[in-house]
């Protein structure tokens, strides 16, 4: 039997193509040089990070998690705690520990610190939650989201409770977001071709056989959980720096469901699906918004009523899932010659 090429050389095309797609989008933003357009692209990049984070856990383990946006919340607040100028912190968040109150760390320290913090918390939650399977695991992750949200909505001295936390340095350059997105895609790719990723997918498809072959399912799930929380936490921190304001209700059900639907529409079991799902849906949303504002076609201005965008995106998602129940990309990944089975 001829020797097969290594897994790396067989699959490297996927992250390269996705990276090129993201580069093209970043260059487009640069070419346009318009503020709101740049911000839209930053928004898309953050979405890609969040959905890739979801993919790392959900795609590989097959367990739907409703709790990951909780890690986004942890990340966003962590970077807020570290990067807000000390005088503002002392006024708004006096309950923070002394060394955090005095700290004024730059953006590029805050974001990785936030990611590590989210991963750490995920480790403790995961130790318990990853023993569960199926719907019990999903509901337990949802309970975790509710828990995080309640703590952050009520811990007045430390999180400002439901008030907006302001003073987070805003970064409107596209590059940090672009680089972070590439890193997230690289992490997602590296995990999926790793030994742990392979074992977890085996457990997803055939739990009994995988366990019989020596796969420690809770342990592999925990690994994926922590890595995905790292990505989600970083995404949350970047969100905080892109808008400059965080509140607990931003990171709750709304964001959970839109991120999950982007993953499902793109293709739950595929990294390419995660990235392309976000890019495609975000694009459709932008086009619809443009029509809400009115588009001049010759002499007539074509306008759709405000709010149609939300309805239309729902209909589009239903149609996509009717036609392709496994998502746009399904379980496949992009390669040089089209799609291959993941």
């Amino acid at each position, binding site marked *: 039997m001829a020797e097969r090429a290594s897994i790396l050389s067989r699959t490297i095309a996927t992250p390269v193509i996705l990276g090129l797609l993201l580069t093209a989008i970043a260059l*487009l933003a640069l070419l346009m040089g318009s*503020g*709101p357009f740049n911000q839209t692209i930053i928004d898309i990049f953050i979405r890609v990070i969040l959905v890739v984070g979801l993919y790392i856990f959900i795609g590989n383990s097959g367990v739907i998690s409703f709790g990951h946006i909780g890690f986004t919340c942890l990340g966003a607040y962590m970077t807020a705690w570290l990067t807000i100028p000390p005088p503002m912190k002392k006024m708004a968040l006096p309950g923070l520990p002394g060394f955090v109150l005095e700290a004024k760390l730059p953006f590029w320290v805050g974001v990785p610190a936030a990611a590590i913090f989210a991963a750490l918390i995920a480790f403790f939650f995961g130790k318990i939650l990853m023993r569960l399977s199926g719907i019990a695991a999903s509901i337990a992750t949802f309970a975790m989201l509710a828990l995080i949200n309640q703590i952050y909505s009520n811990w007045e001295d430390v999180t400002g409770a439901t008030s907006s936390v*302001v003073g987070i340095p*805003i970064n409107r350059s596209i590059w940090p977001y672009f680089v972070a997105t590439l890193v997230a895609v690289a992490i997602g790719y590296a995990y999926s071709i790793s030994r742990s990723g392979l074992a977890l997918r085996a457990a997803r498809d055939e739990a009994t056989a995988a366990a019989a072959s020596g796969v420690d399912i809770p342990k592999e799930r925990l690994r994926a959980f922590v890595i995905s929380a790292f990505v989600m936490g970083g995404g949350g921190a970047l969100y905080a720096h892109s*808008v400059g*304001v965080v*509140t607990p209700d931003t990171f709750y059900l709304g964001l959970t469901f839109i991120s999950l639907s982007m993953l499902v529409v793109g293709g739950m079991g595929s990294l390419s699906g995660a990235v392309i799902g976000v*890019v495609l849906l975000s694009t459709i949303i*932008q086009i619809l918004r443009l029509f809400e504002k009115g588009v001049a076609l010759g002499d007539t201005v074509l306008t759709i009523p405000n709010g149609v965008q939300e309805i239309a995106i729902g209909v589009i998602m239903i149609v996509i899932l009717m036609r392709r129940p496994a998502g746009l990309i399904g379980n496949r990944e992009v390669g040089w010659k089209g799609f291959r089975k993941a």
Partner: protein
Amino acid sequence: MTLWHKLGMGMAVSGLVLSATLAHADDDKIVVGFATAASGFMQAYDKPAQDAAMIKIDEINKAGGLLGKQIEVVTADTKTDRAEGAKAGLEVIDKGADLVVVSCDYDFGSPAALAAESAGKISFFLCAESIKAGIQGVGPHSFSASVLAPVQGATMAEWAYNKKNARKFYRLLDTWTEYNKGICDGFDWMLPRLKDAKLVGEDTFKNEDASIAAQITRIKSLPEQPDAIMLCSMMPGVVSAIKQIRAAGITAPILNGSGVDGSYWLSAVPDLSNFFTPVQGSIYGDDPNKDVTAFNAKYKEVTGADPSSQYVYPGYVMIDVWAKAVERAKSTDADAVVAELEKMKDEPTLFGPRSFSSEIHHQNRGRYLIVETDKGKPRVIDEWTISEAIPVDYLVSK
């Protein structure tokens, strides 16, 4: 590539290209950008004040414009979403906005205001009533067009003390929003300044509580009944609270913030009496200033309906004070206009005098009309300005 793939990429590119078509403003115009909610729940708050702002802009344009230039309006929808708010702020700035008007609420308006601040533009919150909506929470170019919530609480306390001879106060706080807490903060600040006035009891509830029976029982079992109840709450929960207080036979005057202004909800509490609200202007056609009544008529003519509450008025005030500052600065340059705004001391407007300083871009004192609802009919009975301004330090510490 599959069909889907091609389709996806095609859409991606076309979408990105399309959404980038943005207009740039000419130099012979002054541009006001509204980064406000045209959809989502904030629209109910933003739209009326924005309509009032448009009326003032229209008046200025008909009178020859500002610095001889016509004011042009550009808008972007925040969709009642913070991330979209930041984008909307950037979008109106991109379209050349000299003034960026942001959502009524601090939480939803601040992303756009921060975008304006970092671009060095003036931002105005349509009607935010938190000290954060300004220098303290956004930066030195940010203002709010309304009056701080604590001023409402302080006004009601001082007015009831002087005009209703109230000495024993009861404080009932709905902990739902910063706005509610703000009203009670102002009340708390004023109370120790009123000789012989005391708090005979206090309690809290949540806006969503279906029943406040426990709180009512505690009021009724007080050793001395209060002369007035300071109710720090807002729609929609406040209506049920008022109904329950009155149904329990408590007839003491109820003092409120401006959030309960409007007659749209009064049918839910038939024959409500002894109920007092501070307002910046009257929507009931009995404002002591005839120009306010004329404005109400104009508003009805433009929008097809009477103002639903006093929160329409700050939009008009906002354009008024900003335009005056631009005239005086002879420029729309942000720093020059901010300097002129900060010189305003009791600047007369249709809805009471306005002051700004380099310390505070909000009203920590202001004239309020007092509206009494008697047998379900609201009317203006008095006006009151608190004897001293609430110190900035106190406001910030809350």
